[in-house]
């Protein structure tokens, strides 16, 4: 289970309100797409969910308990860049999470335990189609392969919540389509709660079971930082046939 409640969350920087009055109840296993104009605070919201930062007001509850104060293995993340460790090969990147769990002092497994971890990694690598690249370094992979590696690396700790910030932003159309199938298959299998930031409305609507649109509802032309963005649309996509209508109703044009 991983139900997420966001209660009246505000995020304010010195001279700027980024988020205000964000309220959400996300059931466990939901696939949420976060959309909204550039600079409205989607990444900031993700950082709050990851405990990289604390909201200035309000609380975030995961399964009715306050979110832990720092990032931890319960919440996995896929960043747009720097998502894998450059000094480790693909399979070493994937077993890293197992090594952290299995070897508190050295953070490294040896012998039979390492082989067991590598076997486990092999299954995951096969599911993201990276078996052939297991001994390469991340710099030798294409953009799509790097994102698949980042996802595989995250899945090894079986996070209850998966956070992704424009994970497929830099990929070409064909690779994107492959990644959609991959992420949907993994999500159906594991059923973690997913938050994915995207600039691509189509992507959001085709993947997600719920679309969250962030935007500013109040605007003071003299003080652009006075008001923050909030969740303007919170659409559970029960009837996916209405997708086209929903796109048309959104207050900003697809980017």
């Amino acid at each position, binding site marked *: 289970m991983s139900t997420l409640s966001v209660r009246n969350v505000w995020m304010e920087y010195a001279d700027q309100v980024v988020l205000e009055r964000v309220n959400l109840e996300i059931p466990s296993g939901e696939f949420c797409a976060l959309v909204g104009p550039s600079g409205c605070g989607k990444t900031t919201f993700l950082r709050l969910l990851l405990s990289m930062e604390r909201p200035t007001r309000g609380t975030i509850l995961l399964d009715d308990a306050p979110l832990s104060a720092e990032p931890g293995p319960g919440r996995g993340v896929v960043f747009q860049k*720097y998502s894998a460790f450059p000094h480790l090969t693909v399979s070493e990147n994937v077993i890293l999470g197992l090594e952290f769990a299995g070897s508190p002092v050295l953070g490294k497994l040896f012998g039979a335990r390492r082989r067991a971890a590598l076997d486990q990694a092999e299954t995951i690598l096969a599911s993201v189609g990276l078996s052939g690249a297991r001994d390469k370094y*991340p710099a030798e992979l294409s953009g799509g392969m790097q994102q698949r590696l980042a996802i595989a690396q995250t899945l090894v700790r079986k996070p209850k919540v998966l956070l992704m910030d424009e994970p497929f932003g830099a990929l070409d159309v064909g690779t994107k389509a492959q990644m959609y199938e991959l992420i949907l298959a993994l999500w159906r299998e594991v059923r973690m709660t997913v938050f994915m930031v995207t600039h691509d409305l189509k992507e959001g609507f085709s993947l997600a079971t719920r679309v969250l649109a962030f935007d500013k509802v109040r605007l003071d032309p003299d003080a652009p930082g006075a008001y923050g963005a909030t969740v303007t649309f919170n659409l559970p996509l029960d009837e996916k046939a209405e997708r086209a209508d929903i796109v048309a109703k959104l207050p900003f044009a697809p980017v």
Partner: protein
Amino acid sequence: MGRRIINRRLGYGGAIFWGALPFLAFVMLYATFSALRLADNPGDKLLPAFSTIGNTILRLATVPDARTGGILLWVDTEASLMRLGIGLAGASVLGLIGGIAIGLIPYLRAGLSPVVAVISMVPPMAILPILFIVFGLDELSKVMLIIIGVAPFLIRDLAMKVSDMPIELLIKAQTLGASTWQIVLRVVLPQVAPKLVDAIRLSLGAAWLFLISAEAIAATDGLGYRIFLVRRYLAMDVILPYVAWITLLAFAMDWVLRRFNRLCFPWLQRGLS
């Protein structure tokens, strides 16, 4: 024809020729002036002939010294390299620990970085007398001079490299369940190790400077000691080969460190081409 000079490339042979030219020019200039001076005064010591230098090198490198029984060049080289090696190793350990601590842990950064910043501004040569008083006149004070001279630079450089690491990697490691110690061991250390080697390469010049200064002032052997000893007799036939030898050693150390980075951190080169 007609290409701009910025577009004219030279081949491999051309590069070697142009690279060797300044050295050849230097050798010829030296030979000319040396011959001129020696023609004037056969006892001239300032620019000894190549043959004289050659004989001296042979003597220094093969004949045991009458007084100590050791072969001077090797005795001096061993003593100097020992001091340099221990000094650089000590500085590296300090640099690595201090750099990671300051770069990674906010409390230690707050506590240590002002101190390190101030210490790095103290001219090491100015406190050499203190080192001699505190650590005595033998090996320890020379090693300490190198450590004190080089470590603050290494610490600051590595601290910067650590805090320049993408925050994403540190967050990612935490979401994979890593403790601070595990992050240091598996994420930070492997990524700054090659940077440490590069920083050591950059500080080789300073390390040699401190070594030779310390040896010049108080030592009984070592490359710097010998140069400053024979200076009294204007023995350019010793000084010049020693300087060339020191240069060669420094060059070789730099080369070895560069190779070390290539061999030990294969991921640095991958995917660059």
